[in-house]
């Protein structure tokens, strides 16, 4: 089971390699903070978000656009709260 989870997480991590630096930076911090406690529901929400095109995803993460799906919204809020600005 643990092996399965590791493989799933690794796959998700690779899918976080995006075309836009903005998103790479956000996901980098996300994994640092949430890797150990990402549950199945979180994994599913993240997977769904990663299917989006980069510009659509950045519009959600940067708050320019919103989603009416509460599961996705929860994940977007996590992504927003770990934005790299936390280090400055």
């Amino acid at each position: 089971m643990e092996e399965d989870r590791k493989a799933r997480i690794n796959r998700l991590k690779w899918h976080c390699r995006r075309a836009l630096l903005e998103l790479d930076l956000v996901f980098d911090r996300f994994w640092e903070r949430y890797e150990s406690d990402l549950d199945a529901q979180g994994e599913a929400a993240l997977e769904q978000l990663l299917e989006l095109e980069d510009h659509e995803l950045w519009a959600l993460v940067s708050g320019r656009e919103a989603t009416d799906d509460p599961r996705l919204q929860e994940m977007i809020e996590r992504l927003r709260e770990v934005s790299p600005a936390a280090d400055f």
Partner: protein
Amino acid sequence: MNYTVRKFDAVIVGAGGAGLRAAIQLSEAGYKTAVLTKVFPTRSHTVAAQGGVAASLGNSEDDHWHWHMYDTVKGSDWLGDQDAIEFMCRKANEVVVELEHYGMPFDRLDNGKIYQRPFGGHMSNFGEKPVRRSCAAADRTGHAMLHAMYQRNVKVNTQFFVEWQALDLVRDAEGDVLGVTAMDMETGEVVVFHAKATIFATGGAGRIFYSSTNAFINTGDGLGMAARAGIPLEDMEFWQFHPTGVAGAGVLITEGVRGEGGILRNSAGERFMERYAPNAKDLASRDVVSRAMTTEINEGRGCGPNKDFVLLDITHLPPETIMKRLPGIHEIGIQFAGVDCLKEPLPVVPTAHYQMGGIPTNYAGQVVVPKDGAPAVPVPGFYAAGECACASVHGANRLGTNSLLDLLVFGKSAGETAVGDLKGNAKAHKPLPQEAIDKTLARLGRLDSQKDGASVHDTRLEMQRAMQKHAGVFRFKNLLAEGVSRIHEIAGKVAATEIKDKSKVFNTARIEALELDNLIEVAKATMVSANARTESRGAHVRDDAPDTPETPDGRDDKNWLKHSLWYREGNRLDYKPVHMQPLSVDPIELKKRAY
């Protein structure tokens, strides 16, 4: 370690703009074509290109490819090859119209023609006044382009291998290229893609720098593979820096912010651009602003605890102007600098943006190397296009909107040349050299068995900081010389990196170690070439290059009007002449670059 072999007519590495364009050419001609890509094609870095693609369509006012050619030669500070530049500018209309036919949703004029907007450095009538030459699809040009070309490829049955990491070029004893080795990230399986034509379209290596606008995927994989296979890298000292990347993050802040009245300030709050460019001030050209910022930082007038950035101040502008005219900037400030730019200035630094050099090619997209006294002999079976290649059309400095044009023209050209070569080569595939495959297996084996090695993350960071310090936007003789020893020291650590996770399925640690193997080759090429070139030209600016009548602004045509070629083996430099003779028109004569 086991491996399997798969045969194709052509293998293309990279599925950004150049790779997709090359693939269309081969698949349409009926050749069995594999495209390997480490991310899904529409997530390639081409997505980030917003400005548009240059073509002298003349839809809004008179324009001509010859004027575009003049601008590109001048922009390149005369280091661009004039035959390749003529070829690109003349082909521009054709590739843009083709793209339109693939379904690219260009912005339109009322009369239905493609809308064109002006862009820096693009002028009419040989430098007279700005011209509308850029064709765009809102601010999503790169993204729309990838979608249109991906759909076209699906239609013509290109076979995509998504989430595959290319590992090494397969070259036999005669120097012919016979494909690549690659790893399926999903399983860790190693496959040799045995091909008669191999096209690299792997993009740039902007991640060699600490401060870069490039996405994490831009690790110069094709350049590293080429260098390890004995192919030299051309003009790697030339990197374009954008003046305003967010300090620490690299995220680009558009020039529009200064256009709307944004001011750069040093630690004393001084508007320092008044000293460097009394007329244009903060709106002077990219290289002038970047150099001024670097001088302020180097002379101790930077801001923050490490005095390593300057401030971009827009707090004097009405908030409604910022929110209306500069959407996104407020959000970027908050997300990446923790700064509300309506109330506080943004920390910014000149940030690496585009790689002008690359794998040496000619305008037919063939990879060319010096051989038997000739400076540019094609390597049989090997082609390259886009940012990973050096045709050389950008020379020492690229003009905006010429990068998307480059990948369309030379992606197509590489594909066309490969089709021609395949037609003339009906013979079976040449036998695979075991030795080349063994090199890949040894590299993977070393990584799996390494004990007490360096961390990939820490070593990469060390390399990025060294590149930023020693070969950044403004270069100093002593720092460059120290940089050469420093980068070789770091290369020693790269050769002994260790990964803790040895799993097979999507092992991102392994991929990052393999990417670092590629980055370090680009870093060495950049540092060594920059140290040797003792002039200033385009994006390569040294403090010790004197401004004299013979060497205006430090440019030394007598000694340095030539392309650098860096070889990995022996860390050796060679040079080859710039092609000053265009294909059909008179050469654009050397003169001082002034705007």
